[in-house]
C-alpha cells in the first residue's frame, strides 16, 4: 500500500481554504490525505494555531505533510503549530512557499503519484516567481 504525502491548506479565510480543498478533491481525487482550516477562533478572518495543529494531525502519516498557506500570519502560525507537534513528526511537516490554490493542486497531484515529501514541496514551489 502506498503512503501518500498529506496536504494541509491554511488560509485566513475559511471559504478560501474550503474552496481550495474542493478544487484539490475534484482534480486529484480522494486518495491523498487532505485537511484544511481557515479563520481565527472567533470565526473571523485569521489563522488559529490549534486548528492548524489539528489539521496536520488529521493527515499525518509516515510520508509526511506539505502545508500550503496564504499570507504571512498563516505561515508564522503554521511554523508555530509544527513546533507544537510531537518531536519525531516535526521534520516530516514542511511549509511550501507557493500560491495557495495552485500550490495545493500541484502538491496534491505530485503526492497522488506517490512522490516523496521533498518532491511534493519542490513541485509546488516551482509555481513561485
Amino acid at each position, binding site marked *: 500500500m502506498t503512503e501518500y504525502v498529506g496536504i494541509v491548506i491554511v488560509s*485566513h479565510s475559511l471559504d478560501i481554504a474550503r474552496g481550495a480543498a474542493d478544487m484539490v478533491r475534484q482534480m486529484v481525487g480522494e486518495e491523498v490525505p487532505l485537511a484544511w482550516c481557515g479563520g481565527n477562533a472567533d470565526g473571523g478572518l*485569521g489563522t*488559529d*494555531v490549534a486548528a492548524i495543529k489539528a489539521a496536520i494531525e488529521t493527515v499525518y502519516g509516515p510520508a509526511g505533510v506539505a502545508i500550503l498557506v496564504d499570507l*504571512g500570519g498563516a505561515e508564522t*502560525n503554521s511554523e508555530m503549530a509544527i513546533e507544537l507537534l510531537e518531536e519525531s513528526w516535526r521534520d516530516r511537516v514542511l511549509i511550501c512557499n507557493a500560491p495557495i490554490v495552485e500550490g495545493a493542486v500541484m502538491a496534491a497531484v505530485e503526492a497522488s503519484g506517490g512522490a516523496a515529501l521533498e518532491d511534493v514541496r519542490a513541485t509546488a514551489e516551482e509555481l513561485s516567481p
Partner: protein
Amino acid sequence: MAPDLLDTMLSATAAVIRDNAEALTALDQAIGDGDHGINMKRGFAAIEAEKAAVVALALPQALQKIGMTLVMNVGGASGPLYGSYFMAMGKAMPPEAVTVAALAEALTAGALAVQQRGKSAPGEKTMLEVLVPVADAVRQAAEAGMSMDALLAAVREAAARGLKSTRDMLATKGRASYLGERSIGHLDPGAQSSQLLVDSICDVVATALAATKVEGV
C-alpha cells in the same frame, strides 16, 4: 516574583490592551490588516481568564503558560510572535532570586525568539523596535547598578523612543511590507502594543515600589 505582583501585572496588561484595542486596530488598518487590536484583546483576555492558574506557577512556568495562551488565542501573526517572546523569557528566567541581570537575559532571549519567529531584525518597523531597546536598557541598568526608579525611567524611555522610531521606517516584514513606501509615516501597531505593555508593567512595578517605600520595608 510575588504572586500578587504578577496578578496585578496580568490585570493591568489586559486592561491596557482592552482600553487601547480600537487605537491598535486603527493603526493596523493604516498599514496592516486591521485585526491587531481585537486579536490582542482576545489573547490578553484569555490570559486574564487563566490568571489564577498562572500566578500559582513558578515564574518560568508562568511565563511559558502566558506565551502558550497567546499562541493559542491571538489568531494573528502576533500570537506566535508574542507567544514565542514569553515562552523564551520563561525558559531563560531563573525560578527564584530574579536579579536585574537575569531579567535582562530573559528579555534578550525573548527578543531573539521574536526575531527568529518573524525572520526579522531591528530596523524593519516591527515590535522589535521596542523589545530590543527595552532588553538593552535593562542590561545597561544591571551593569550600571541603577536604582529601580532609574531603571524604570530608562525602560519607559527606551520603549517610547523605539515606538516613535517606527514612524519613519519602511516596513519590509509582515502585511505592512506590501504597502512599500506608503508604510512610512505610520507607527507600527506591534511596536505600539509592545510599548503599551512595557509601560503598563513599569506602572505596576512603580506602584509596588512606592508602596514598599511607604511601608518602610
